């Protein structure tokens, strides 16, 4: 294995594009190094992106917030402005692993590892996050929901890597939330998860996005769940409709951590609860 730590995104993309063998991006290493140690992956080239200045840190832009791809979960959790703007996104990222893992793990790594149960992904999608992709040929920006195509699979082509994630500036009276169900209190992988982002107008839900995790091969947007609460003050009838829409969208696996029936039911429950928290954060009552 060859280890490279370039100083620019362009160099990183060139290294990845040129490599004939298996090439991987190394950010926090909390998935990649585990796979290497278990013998599941034998990289020929590892490109560490942490020495690239444009991949580090959180910056405010004219249209929102830009998060460098190598920024750790711990750094995001210390950013008060980001927590204020997108509390659901930050709480989702901070649910990944222990403090030890938080020191290293990244949102983009969580995205590109492409686990159906990735915590930060539903929250990013609900928030309308976009990924800036760089390759030797240029740049493109795509919505986060276009990145993961299946378990362990992404739409990134050879030589492409994500440089940053951008989150829009939240509209006034907006709130977001992320919840996951695990059988213990900490340190586990989501059995079901739900992210909701919404905006109020005169106390009524004007815009909403509901996204589920761990109940299908990728995170899924549930347009019918959003529709169920738009135009309401999140009354019980609207919440029941949202829950049903969430359950209807589920296509989960059946395993020892949760049966199909269980995951399908809990998706509705978590959808409702996340919507209530987002509503409260948006100032609704």
């Amino acid at each position, binding site marked *: 294995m060859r280890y490279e730590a370039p100083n620019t995104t362009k160099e990183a993309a060139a290294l990845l594009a040129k490599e004939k063998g298996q090439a991987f991006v190394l950010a926090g290493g*909390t998935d990649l190094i585990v796979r290497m140690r278990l013998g599941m992956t034998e990289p020929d080239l590892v490109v560490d992106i942490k020495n690239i200045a444009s991949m580090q840190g959180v910056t405010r832009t004219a249209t929102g917030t830009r998060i460098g791809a190598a920024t750790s979960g711990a750094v995001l959790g210390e950013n008060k402005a980001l927590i204020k703007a997108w509390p659901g996104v930050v709480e989702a990222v901070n649910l990944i692993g222990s403090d030890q893992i938080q020191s290293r793990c990244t949102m983009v790594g969580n995205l590109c590892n492409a686990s159906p149960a990735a915590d930060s992904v539903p929250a990013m999608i609900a928030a309308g996050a976009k990924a800036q992709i760089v390759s030797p040929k240029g740049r493109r920006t795509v919505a986060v929901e276009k990145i993961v195509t299946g378990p362990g699979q992404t739409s990134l082509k050879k030589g492409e890597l994500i440089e940053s994630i951008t989150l829009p500036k939240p509209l006034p009276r907006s709130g977001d939330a992320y919840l996951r169900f695990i059988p213990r209190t900490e340190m586990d992988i989501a059995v079901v998860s739900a992210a909701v982002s919404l905006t109020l107008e005169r106390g009524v839900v004007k815009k909403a996005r509901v996204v589920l995790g761990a109940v299908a091969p990728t995170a899924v947007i549930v347009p019918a769940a959003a529709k169920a609460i738009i135009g309401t003050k999140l009354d019980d009838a609207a919440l029941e409709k949202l829950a049903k829409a969430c359950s209807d969208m589920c296509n989960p696996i059946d395993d020892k951590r949760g049966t199909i029936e269980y995951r399908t039911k809990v998706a509705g429950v978590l959808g409702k609860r996340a919507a209530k928290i987002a509503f409260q954060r948006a100032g609704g009552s």
Partner: protein
Amino acid sequence: MAGVHISTTINGDMVEFACPQDETLLNSLRDRVGLTGVKEGCGTGDCGACSVTLDGRLVCSCLVLSAEVNGRNITTVEGMSEEGKLHPLQEKFIEHAALQCGICTPGFLVAAKVLLEDNPKPSEEEIRYALAGNLCRCTGYDKIVRAVQAAGKEMRKKRR
């Protein structure tokens, strides 16, 4: 495989070593630098026995490549005592019998030190969350939590 030459600061000392490019920091610390206080438990970032700090942040050294630490600053359990005097956490772990077989202890000590530096008076819940990445299979967590609380108290007294 070509190796890498690493020059880094460990517990305040400049250290140099050479290793393969895919070697983990855990293996380099134990086998090349001789810091065997860093333990290997799971090797996959779940148990925290290999906890060290990297530029002040708590990490599992099994999930760090040595190639990444050139020019960085690392501390291990060996760096906790000063001039032969144990750190209050070490003293309280002994006093409260917060260890049995001892494999997890270095990781707990390093993690607890990071916690107390950041939060000098953590609640029991905060301690349990902060140490959730460290697993103990024999003493149990209660004594460990009590020892961390006692060490926090001791450290706050000294600071006054």
